[in-house]
């Protein structure tokens, strides 16, 4: 069924690259988001300003420009650094990692806002009670705030992950061999653009569905209170 004049396996191969790119960028992006949110909520003026500038700039410029900036600009910067060490050869930076850099920086900027709002949602009393138990700030954050924060942050993060998945298509423009790249290659040799781009669109749609379902599961996992309530009501219903 999924043959598409012999290009089916190639598209699947590209899909795997797309999934890899999305997941690696997600991990880095979450890290950026957590760092950004911590910086935004810190007492240090400079850190707050840096985080502000980061989110404002990234959220205001197009994703495509960001990808170009990282890919073309990154090689210039790395070449300049290499020159300092006396290397004057040609430097190519990996498509995959410049894609990861661009996507995770973009994801991080939006995630910063989501995390910030989620942390602010948690009552001040939680911090204070942890402190009164003698926990250090990092311990408090790691053991008390973070697990509760996920419940609030997950719906927002799920939406951001969907945006991230769709943005991975942009990295094909700088030449990463992902789903979009292979579809374009299939189009140039078969001259059937509609068929292959529609196939690509449907694959992206499938990935979207998978992500939506798994985010629902994650939200369920992250919220023990809701699970407990469900169990309680269902057991009550069983008794009566």
């Amino acid at each position: 069924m999924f043959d598409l004049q012999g290009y089916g396996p190639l598209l699947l191969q590209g899909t795997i690259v797309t999934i890899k790119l999305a997941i690696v960028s997600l991990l880095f992006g979450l890290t950026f988001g957590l760092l950004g949110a911590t910086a935004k909520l810190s007492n240090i003026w400079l850190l707050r300003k840096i985080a502000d500038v980061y989110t404002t700039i990234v959220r205001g410029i197009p994703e495509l420009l960001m990808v170009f900036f990282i890919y073309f600009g990154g090689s210039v910067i790395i070449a300049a650094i290499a020159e300092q060490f006396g290397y004057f050869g040609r430097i190519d930076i990996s498509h995959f990692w410049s894609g990861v850099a661009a996507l995770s920086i973009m994801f991080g900027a939006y995630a910063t806002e989501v995390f910030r709002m989620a942390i602010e949602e948690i009552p001040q009393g939680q911090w204070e009670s942890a402190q009164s138990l003698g926990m250090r700030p990092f311990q408090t954050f790691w053991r008390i705030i973070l697990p509760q924060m996920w419940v609030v942050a997950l719906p927002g993060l799920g939406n951001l992950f969907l945006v991230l998945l769709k943005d991975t298509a942009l990295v094909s423009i700088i030449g990463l061999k992902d789903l979009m790249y292979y579809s374009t290659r299939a189009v140039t040799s078969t001259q059937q653009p509609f068929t292959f781009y529609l196939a690509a669109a449907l694959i992206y749609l499938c990935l979207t569905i998978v992500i939506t379902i798994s985010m629902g599961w994650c939200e369920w996992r992250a919220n023990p209170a809701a699970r407990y309530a469900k169990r309680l009501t269902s057991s009550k219903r069983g008794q009566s």
Partner: protein
Amino acid sequence: MSWNWQAIITYFPELLKSSVTTIELVFLSCVFGLIFGVILGLLRLAKNPLIKALPFAYIFFFRGTPLLVQIFLIYYGLGQFDFMQNSALWDPVFSQPYWCAIIAFTLNTSAYIAEIVRGAIGSIPKGELEAADTIGMSHRQKLRRIVLPRAFGIMLPAYSNEVIFMLKGSALAATITVVDLTYTAKGIMAKTYLPLEIYFAAGVIYLIISWVILFGFRLFERSINKHKRYTPPTLVIPK
């Protein structure tokens, strides 16, 4: 590596000129998208499951696939069909990258706007709708006088976000050779090989445009949601 200010100054006018195309793309697709999105959003709220299913599938498709794929589907994809190539609209519209970009953006943004409209209509206080029923307004009157104006006020912040997303998405028009800001920046970059400076300049222009859009929306919001800031004058009873 040295930062080349001269290149930025030299090429800035060229970038500014091409940003007009970017603004045109955003403006046209947001206007068309708003009209289309409101219709879709209203259809999505219809009671008939058959009428509801179609906008749902549409919204699901356009929100679930990358904008890049949608642009390619319209610009490259439609040419696969002979009846498209033979139609009267082929030469003026479907073979022009500019119009294809606008069509793709309109379809894309209207799917998002439909969801915003749906959310806004859902969050109109029930009492206001019931009050309209009580006065005896017909369904159409209620829609025109109560539902749409109220929903518009509620959805404005979300809509301004959507316009910013459209501005960011409009850079994708560069991939189908529309001479917009990103395309020009890439061309200059290929000529000078100064990626950092040129993309920096382009990024600054995008930032300025998005700030202007946000500022405009904030002013608009203040005037349209005036009733929220209105505090009734306190009644002073003379002794």
